[in-house]
């Protein structure tokens, strides 16, 4: 591992520079020197731990095949699938809520507008534990929803300690980021485009479908990708709600601390990272082509 780090750094790079040009000795050297601190930090805090993690994943009794067997484990696979489903659901619901709210907030000025925007972005400041706590206050055994349903004679409704509670917490947590992105994109919309569509007879719904959503698409895709990645990896809320909740970060935690199955935990971590990274990459390429098509 340490060999790997020693190979990477920059002193070797000047050998690759182009032949003879005015001042070629000075400039690349200076650039290399300027890049060196960043490269060192990158190697120490990103490459090194990552490589170490990958190697630990392969360091168990089964070697590199740990990566396959870990995933073949029904419990792990189940956890992965439910995490993916949860994250996808959170992303879709968050996008829907935030698009409607963001557009409304950009287009309508009313007393208290600034306060409302500030309140909506408030959850950004909370750690996952606090979000989890708030979900329990709302839908836990002593929660508001349970008390109300009991008073209405419908029995005590409690869903804080399950996927539903986690879903609620993640949506609450994700809305601020997406709303801010949607608002920034919506402010740049050309109102003339909507007026042109309306002059051609388009109803409000058609204007949304044909003009507004296509224009917001790049922003929605990038905000959605971030929301998805956050939901895939979030841990604090799940941990606060219940230790037996079946999402991948919790599974990793359990393997690591309770089962002391360090290789499996490392392998799952790498898989979680890969899947999330792939989802982001796909979203980015889709957004990229749509941006190009939109000119």
């Amino acid at each position: 591992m340490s060999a790997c780090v020693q190979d990477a750094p920059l002193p070797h790079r000047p050998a690759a520079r182009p032949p003879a040009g005015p001042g070629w000795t000075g400039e690349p050297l200076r650039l290399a020197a300027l890049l060196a601190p960043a490269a060192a930090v990158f190697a120490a805090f990103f490459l090194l731990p990552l490589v170490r993690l990958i190697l630990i994943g392969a360091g168990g009794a089964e070697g590199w095949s740990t990566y396959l067997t870990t995933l073949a484990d029904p419990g792990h696979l189940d956890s992965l699938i439910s995490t993916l489903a949860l994250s996808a659901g959170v992303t879709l619901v968050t996008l829907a809520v935030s698009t409607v709210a963001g557009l409304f907030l950009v287009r309508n000025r009313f007393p208290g507008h600034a306060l409302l925007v500030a309140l909506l972005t408030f959850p950004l400041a909370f750690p996952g534990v606090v979000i989890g706590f708030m979900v329990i206050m709302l839908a836990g055994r002593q929660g508001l929803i349970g008390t109300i349903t009991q008073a209405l004679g419908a029995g005590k409704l409690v869903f804080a300690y399950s996927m539903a509670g986690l879903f609620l917490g993640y949506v609450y947590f994700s809305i601020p980021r997406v709303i801010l992105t949607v608002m920034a994109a919506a402010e740049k919309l050309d109102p003339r485009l909507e007026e042109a569509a309306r002059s051609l007879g388009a109803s409000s719904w058609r204007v949304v479908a044909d003009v507004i959503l296509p224009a917001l698409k790049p922003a929605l895709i990038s905000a959605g990708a971030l929301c998805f990645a956050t939901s895939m990896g979030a841990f604090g809320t799940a941990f606060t709600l219940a230790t037996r909740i079946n999402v991948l970060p919790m599974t990793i935690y359990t393997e690591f601390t309770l089962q002391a199955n360090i290789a499996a935990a490392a392998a799952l971590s790498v898989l979680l990272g890969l899947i999330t990274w792939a989802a982001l990459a796909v979203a980015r390429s889709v957004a990229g082509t749509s941006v190009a098509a939109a000119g």
Partner: protein
Amino acid sequence: MPDSVMPNSFHLDAVPIRLERCGKTFAGGARALEPLDLTIRGGETIVFLGPSGCGKTTTLRIIAGLESPDPGGRVLFGEEDVTALPIERRNVGMVFQSYALFPNMTVAENVAYGLKVRKLPRVDRARRVEELLDLMHLGEFAGRRIDQLSGGQRQRVALARALVVRPRVLLLDEPLTALDAKLRDSLRLEIDRLLRSLGITAVYVTHDQGEAMALGDRIVVMAKGRVAQVGTPREIYYQPADAFVADFIGTMNRLGGTVRGGMLSLGTALLPWSGPDGAAELLVRPEDLALAGEADGHLDGTVAAAVFLGDRTRLVVEPADGPALTVDAAGRSELGRGDRVWLRVDPARVLAVP
């Protein structure tokens, strides 16, 4: 039949428009438009002309249905009161300065949009899109993306898109302002030809008096939310209603004179004049001031600047007293800075400031 594929036969109904007491006060209490009464004849091209903030765009948006007039105002298309109808139900064509083409659609899809919204069968849609693309000489660009077109081509697409739905009125909001000078001239000629051949009622908003004079059957000159004058380009140019219109359209010289007993004394000259006695402020166009000899000149002054414009040389002459005068001399005139000149005034072409 307007359904023929022959571009030349594409013709639209000429719907008259009437504005009755249409004023506009914005939420903050700012008055954008004083109550306005105006009848636009069917098939007429009317140009709203004025500096920015004069209310011309607000008027256009009231006709379009993008703004509603203050209570009491009415907008009529023919006999139909459309005041309460939003733009999507007024069947108007709109062309914007910024083109406002849909970036996620091709040229053909942009043009077809209004027909798609109207749920026209695909076959009819394709035929009418092709007809309009031919009319606007855009046939070869049908499959292009919008960002592959020049500004002039984009505005032609916008015109085709607005016309394909056979609107009752065509509304153009500074359609040439974003184009460079040469394109602007050629597209202006094309729009002129189009409006004449279509026979559609058109409302055109601009701050450019050249465009207004070239395109308008009538011009509505506006200032500070009021109509300053309505008239044909010639009326506006030769009989401006007030000093603002005179100054805004073309170049106008101001002369001070004195009237006594039916004679106007102007510089060294006495000219027959009908008007009340006393000091008079007079307006005269540069082309109505002629260079003359010392013997028959009415005014004299010194050339302060001479600008050669090819077909003419525009002189700025400073008289001994009073404001500088702009005078057109022949292109080959050799007059230059510091030369002394005499000017003749044709009393028939002098206007008194109302």
